[in-house]
């Protein structure tokens, strides 16, 4: 592309500035960086146009030269342009230096391998030290401004690569002592000093004479990158001088310089401070921040060096200076500020926060500083805004809020007032003349009055609610504040129901201290005015937020009256939203009628459907379940159908979900009584379960189908009575029961789980015979014994005895079934096996290790089971 005219460039730059990203995405974007560099050497363009091109490169190097290689090339080109300038005065030298510096620093190209860096750094240092660099660098008249500019460039490079100038500290000191420009050199030296100290402290190294090594790097010689590399070639978050940051975090490990180094360091700092009055106020402030940072981590460097500056600084109205003093206060605390100094600083700050000659933004910043004042002996928790101890009510008098304040000023001053009210309560009203709480009440009333203005700007309403929120936040425990606030807000709602969204927002954000009474007050406010009302939609919005189980009849009455006026979809949805809130709150009575009526009478079919759905839910779901089904996360009704949105919410809730077994079931001790065998089940649960239903199925149809067992509630750690499961065997045989559990979780979900199968043993089916007639037990037994044959079966077997002997064995396993006993040698046992079998045992003449057992049964199929049972008895223990 050929050279462009001034106008074309102006147009191009304008388009670029309007939206850099759009321009760079367009057809001209790619060439812009290259064109710009070329045009700087064009002889057709005026210097002014070239300056505007350079200005662009100062702001958008990342867009013009997006990677390190491009940035390096650009910096090289800019330096070439600089040396090619004719030796007459030119407005381009300064911006060219700035542009080359920016390109390198912003483009990540600065480093020992970069050719442009190797050219730029010695050039800047040469200029900064006022050396004659030859005619190429312009007439003598430009030397002074270029010297300052070179210092600025070096400072920026040092900022981006800390430690870069670590080797030049001595040189900079000597320049500052000579005739160099004071401000640029002071700031450069202070920054380099601070960075060096931080890096050396991290490396646990001393200053190593860096402060006195006075020589320049030889022209063309290599630059010393050691310190910059030690700083990891990365920027590290710098040590904030604020005490809130932990010592370790700030990375300023404590550095202990040798006495000699300490003396040199003190001299350097004193040198900087002594000439600081020659700096502009903002530069003085920077110097103080940097030196404060630098000395904070150093042992044996008393901060008294700063003391002579303080009185001068405390008298000024300059924001940066007072802020810098606060930074010193935070950094050094008592070491620099005695209790009296602290009191004076606090008074000056209080004064500045209300001085009529200062602008509002400054007032607000000072007020912030007051509430975050770095006290010598802070009492309260750190990190929270508090009024400093010394800031008594008297000092605060002029800092209290007034309705005439701007919103942010009012909130800032209100916060202070709240803090005073909180303290006031702690002091238990010492009969003080002034009562901040009363003033607070009047102020809030004034804010509400303004918020109630019909047609007033929303900002006024917002301010009123922000103030209320702030007050609740600070004074949640003070009923003397909260009660009038609640009533006042309720009155505000009455006056301007259109503020409903603000009320809903407030209720969402405050705790129960205000939330509970305000809900009640607003509900009463709304339901006491039924009927057609312009504000119906606001009333419904409020009700859907505040309707709960309390006083449902009034709410339902209001809704019934309102239903007739809900003519459009939006109002109907709002109405149903309130019904939903009532459903969730567990209101049943009366609501069903209303929902039924709505399902019939609403004009919009979507509304009718939703009402019907709610009715069905109400009719079919128990309270807690309903609460969960209508969870709070309903999205705003979709425009097409509110039903769809609603369904998404609870479809999952109404389905039974498969879950891992949350309980353990086991068979407890046998009962052996009653007409049928009953299993005693013991349950342990891992989490609370509600409405538990256990279902059992017998494999192989050995028993009649089993009924389910219901338990209303099972809690972990709380023992539960054993559950009884009656069995109706079709054959006297052991079996496996498959078990499933249905239950509700605390979250309200219904779940279903398979439990491990439950074994029913042969002995679990044993029942005793009805009691034998008195006196003739033997006869009763013999009768049973005889009746088994001839259809039945007879057997004899050897029942091994354990060490406990026959008596114990019988007592443990067969006691309920013993008819005739002659302890310890002879027992006659009769067992009933449902549905219709019997098993008779004669255990007689026990020997040392066993007892011979004669057994008869009327059911031959029982015989092997009985054999296994008896043989296993001694092992069963």
């Amino acid at each position, binding site marked *: 592309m050929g050279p462009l005219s001034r106008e074309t460039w102006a147009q191009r730059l304008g388009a670029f500035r*309007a939206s850099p990203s759009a321009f760079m995405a367009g057809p001209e974007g790619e060439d812009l960086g290259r064109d710009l560099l070329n045009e700087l050497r064009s002889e057709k363009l005026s210097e002014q146009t070239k300056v505007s091109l350079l*200005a662009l490169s100062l*702001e958008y*190097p990342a867009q013009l030269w997006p990677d390190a290689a491009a940035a390096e090339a650009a910096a090289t080109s800019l330096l070439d342009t600089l040396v090619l300038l004719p030796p007459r*005065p030119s407005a381009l030298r300064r911006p060219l230096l700035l542009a080359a510096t*920016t390109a390198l*620093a*912003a483009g990540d190209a600065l480093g020992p391998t970069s050719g442009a860096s190797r050219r730029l750094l010695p050039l800047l240092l040469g200029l900064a030290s006022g050396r004659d660099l030859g005619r190429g660098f312009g007439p*003598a*008249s430009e030397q*002074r401004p270029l010297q300052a*500019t070179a210092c600025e460039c070096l*400072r*920026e490079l040092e*900022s*981006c690569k800390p430690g870069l100038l670590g080797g030049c500290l001595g040189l900079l000191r000597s320049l500052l002592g000579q*005739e160099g*420009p004071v*401000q640029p050199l002071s700031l450069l030296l202070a920054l380099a000093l601070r960075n060096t100290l931080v890096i050396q402290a991290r490396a646990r190294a001393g200053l190593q004479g860096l402060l006195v090594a006075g020589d320049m790097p030889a022209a063309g010689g290599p630059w010393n990158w050691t310190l910059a590399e030690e700083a990891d070639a990365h920027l590290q*978050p710098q040590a904030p001088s*604020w005490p809130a*940051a932990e010592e370790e975090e700030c990375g300023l490990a404590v550095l202990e310089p040798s006495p000699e180094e300490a003396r040199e360091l003190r001299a350097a700092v004193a040198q900087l401070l002594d000439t600081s*009055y*020659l700096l*502009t106020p*903002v530069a*003085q402030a920077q110097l103080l921040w940097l030196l404060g940072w630098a000395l904070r981590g150093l042992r044996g460097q008393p901060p008294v060096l700063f003391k002579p500056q303080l*009185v001068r600084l405390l*008298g*000024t*109205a300059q*924001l940066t200076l*007072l*802020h810098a003093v606060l930074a010193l206060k*935070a950094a050094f605390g008592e070491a620099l500020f005695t209790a009296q100094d602290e009191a*004076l600083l606090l008074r000056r700050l209080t*004064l500045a926060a209300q*001085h*009529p000659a*200062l*602008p509002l*933004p400054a007032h*607000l910043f000072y*007020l*912030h500083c007051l509430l*975050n004042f770095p006290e010598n002996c802070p009492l309260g928790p750190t990190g929270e805004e508090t009024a400093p101890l010394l800031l008594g009510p008297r000092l605060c008098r002029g800092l*209290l809020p*007034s309705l005439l304040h701007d919103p*942010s000023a009012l*909130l*800032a001053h209100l916060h202070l007032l709240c803090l005073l009210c909180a303290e006031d309560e702690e002091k238990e009203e010492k009969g003080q*003349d*002034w009562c901040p709480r009363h*003033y607070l009440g009047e102020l809030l009333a004034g804010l509400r009055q303004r918020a109630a203005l019909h*047609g007033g700007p*929303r*900002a006024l309403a917002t301010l009123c609610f922000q103030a209320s929120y*702030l007050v609740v936040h600070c004074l949640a425990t003070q009923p003397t504040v909260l009660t009038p606030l609640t009533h006042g807000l309720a009155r505000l709602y009455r006056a301007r129901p259109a503020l409903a969204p*603000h009320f809903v*927002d407030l209720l969402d954000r405050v705790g129960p201290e205000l939330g509970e009474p305000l809900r009640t007050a607003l509900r009463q406010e709304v339901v006491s005015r039924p009927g057609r009302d312009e504000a119906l939609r606001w009333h419904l919005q409020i009700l859907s937020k505040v309707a709960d189980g309390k006083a449902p009849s009034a709410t339902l009455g209001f809704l019934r009256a309102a239903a007739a006026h809900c003519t459009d979809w939006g109002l109907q949805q709002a109405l149903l939203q309130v019904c939903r809130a009532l459903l969730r709150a567990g209101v049943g009575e009366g609501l069903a009628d209303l929902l039924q009526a709505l399902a019939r009478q609403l004009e919009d079919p979507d509304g009718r459907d939703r009402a019907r759905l709610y009715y069905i839910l109400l009719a079919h779901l128990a309270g807690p379940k309903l609460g969960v089904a209508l969870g709070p996360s309903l999205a705003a009704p979709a425009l097409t159908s509110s039903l769809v949105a609603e369904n998404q919410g609870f479809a999952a809730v109404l389905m039974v979900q498969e879950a891992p077994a949350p309980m353990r079931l086991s068979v407890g001790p046998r009962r052996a009584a009653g007409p049928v065998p009953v299993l005693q089940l013991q349950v342990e649960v891992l989490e609370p379960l509600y409405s538990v239903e256990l279902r059992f199925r017998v494999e192989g149809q050995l028993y009649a189908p089993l009924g389910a067992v219901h338990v209303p509630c099972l809690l972990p750690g709380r023992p539960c009575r054993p559950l009884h499961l009656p069995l109706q065997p079709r054959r006297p045989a052991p079996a496996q029961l498959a078990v499933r559990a249905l239950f509700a979780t605390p979250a309200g979900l219904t779940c279903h789980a398979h439990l491990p199968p439950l074994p029913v043993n042969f002995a679990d089916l044993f029942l005793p015979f009805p009691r034998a007639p008195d006196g003739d037990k033997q006869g009763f037994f013999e009768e049973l014994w005889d009746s088994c044959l001839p259809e039945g079966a007879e057997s004899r077997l050897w029942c091994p005895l354990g060490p406990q002997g026959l008596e114990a064995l019988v007592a443990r396993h067969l006691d309920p079934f013993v008819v005739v006993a002659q302890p310890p040698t002879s027992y006659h046992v009769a067992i009933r096996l449902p549905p219709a079998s019997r098993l008779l045992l004669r255990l007689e003449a026990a020997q040392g290790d066993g007892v011979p057992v004669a057994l008869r049964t009327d059911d031959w199929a029982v015989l092997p089971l009985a054999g296994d049972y008896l043989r296993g008895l001694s092992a069963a223990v």
Partner: protein
Amino acid sequence: MAQRAVWLISHEPGTPLCGTVRFSRRYPTVEKRARVFNGTSYVPIPEDGPFLKALLFELRLLDDDKDFVESRDSCSHINKTSVYGLLVGGGELWPVVAFLKNNMIYACVPLVEQTLSPRPPLISISGISQSFELLFGIQDFLHLGQKNDTELNTKLNQLPDLLLQACPFGTLLDANLQNSLDSINFASVTHPQKQPAWKVGTYKGKPQVSISITEKVKSMQYDKQDIADTWQVVGAVTCKCDLEGIMPNVTISLSLPTNGSPLQDILVHPCVTSLDSAILTSSSIDAMDDSAFSGPYKFPFTPPLESFNLCYYTSQVPVPPILGFYQMKEEEIQVKITVNLKLHESVKNNFEFCEARIPFYNRGPITHVEYKVSFGQLEVFREKSLLIWIIGQKFPKSMEISLSGTVTFGAKSHEKQPFDEICIGGTAYLKLHFKILDYTLTGCYADQHSVQVFASGKPKINTHRKLISSDYYIWNSKAPAPITYGSLLLVRCHN
């Protein structure tokens, strides 16, 4: 301690965007540091368009506050300073220092040299105060002697060059932009050594020193038993020292007559080299007693070239210069008003001008006025619903004047008549505007002979004094009025 970007935005209500970016400047090397320091909480500086939109939204300067918007109107979205968080590009840009002054929004984003999450307190961010100074500096430059839009545009066009001087890399070197302008022009002068950075070049010519004391008096008068009236004097001493030499030393003493009111809350210019502790501690926070320091107030300093404010002070004079009452009663579509004003005998009865403005807010236009004044003339601005009582140069011998009358209003139309959030119902005020030359209410003066100048040649010394009113309100005593805590407290003290 640096700025990432700075903007000037003119607020233009009623236009589609409600504003235009008039100037912006980004600092990419600072931005690079921000990315490192802020880590995962880093949010890049947006382009001008999205920034404008987000800032106007946050400052409530878009014309769309009809609906409740949670991100702006929520009660927990509390802003207690001029520092904001802006939602841009999915992140929140913070801290954005911004304020509106004379329809211009001044905004910048300082570098925070740590992570932004959790947000550090503003007091711990060194760049915050620098942001304010930069913006105040730009504001002073734009509005110093600026008369019209053309001048504003000229100055806006100078800004890029000025910031290239005053803030080349985002670190502010001098908040006094006029100084930077001079330094561009002075560039060819050979600088002697130890030149202060706040003084470019030296003065050549006849030595002279001008000192001008301007006192502003503000007042809130209620004419009520349970609310005390308040008034306060705020003084500013402006100097221009045309003296030869690099660092001439000057000492100015402010004196009070025997019955003068002590100066308090004194804030001085940074060029003042030392300050008596009595000056430093004299404060309106303390109860006044006879032992209060009453001068002379000595200010030794090395002056800059330009005119500067040597010091500010406040003072509590025993009586307000004009004491009055205002009674307004509403009767359907008209109001009855009675005003009485009395000049205190100690005050110089020679005004450059004196008038009382009586506005009627939240009402329709004035359709009819019947009135009687004991002195001066009444001007009626019907559409603005405003009466101006022109009192003129002198109060009559009795020192007391009155106005009574009936004002009738037409139907209210929201577009034309002024809305006011304070003046609801009977709440109303009149505001006094006056100026008295060669006079201060405290009696404070700078004696020509007390000015010491350590420089070659005996300078000519000019002194000026004036008193002007500022926020001088007299509230309708027949209705509630906004009060300050001081008004309540004073009554308790007096009773």
